[in-house]
């Protein structure tokens, strides 16, 4: 039986790696992938607590998080395709239409 704390530490590490990726990478697609990484670290936390408290609700919420992640990926990648068709770039530095 692995302690819950170990899962929390692992999830913290993965979440931090995801945040570093979102803040430093300039490719929109890689940024979206790093968001998926962060969502997965949260799922890891939910399942760890579900196992710790022997309560299945954590896994129910994991299913919802996966649903939201799928919707987010579909819409996000649709936006990326529309963006590439209009601006010929996937670099976040060049997508500054709303920057004042």
């Amino acid at each position, binding site marked *: *039986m692995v*302690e*819950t*704390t*170990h899962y*929390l530490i*692992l999830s*913290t*590490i993965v979440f*931090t*790696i*995801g*945040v*570093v990726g979102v*803040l*430093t*990478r*300039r*490719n929109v*697609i*890689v940024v979206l*992938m*790093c968001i*998926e*990484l962060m969502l*997965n670290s949260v*799922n*890891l936390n939910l*399942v*760890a607590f*579900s*196992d710790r*408290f022997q*309560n*299945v*609700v954590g*896994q*129910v919420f*994991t*299913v*919802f998080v*996966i*649903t939201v*992640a799928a*919707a*987010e*990926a*579909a*819409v996000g*990648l*649709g*936006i*990326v*395709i*529309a963006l*590439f068709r209009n601006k010929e*770039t*996937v*670099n976040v*530095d060049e997508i500054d239409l709303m920057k004042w």
Partner: protein
Amino acid sequence: MMEGVLFYILATVLVFFSILTVVARNPVRSALYLISALLSVAGLFFLQEAEFVGAVQVLVYVGGIMVLFLFVIMLVSVREVVFQRKAGRQWKAGVVLALVMAAELVYFLINGVGIFQSTPPETGIIVAPETQNTETLGRVLYGTYLLPFEIASILLLVAIIGAVVLSKKEI
């Protein structure tokens, strides 16, 4: 003992491939590393006796979302994305911000570690040891959480329509 060894193997693989996902120059490689990371997360789910969520992880994430990602990477011209600089000017600020956030998380972990040592509360839906994970999850999902489940299906419908509208030619 066996579980501990498996946990450390899967955790090492997960952290290793997560770092590779972030540092890989080529987005296709990045996606492949992310697939490996997601598979090790699925392994960790199986390790915690969450079989249904682990199977969903493999089917939806690896079989669905990551295929979508690879599709889009192939659609936007590969040459354009491969030969761009890895990080922009503000990457140092980004790393510093991420480290500050990590310090906060570690602070809360250290302060909250006592909570996890206490005995679990006797509330909520307790899993009976003899029932199957999938059966319990299905009963809770279609019983107590029926309304959120239906809202999630509406969310998916909205996402489908949104993706179709966004990908249309003239927008």
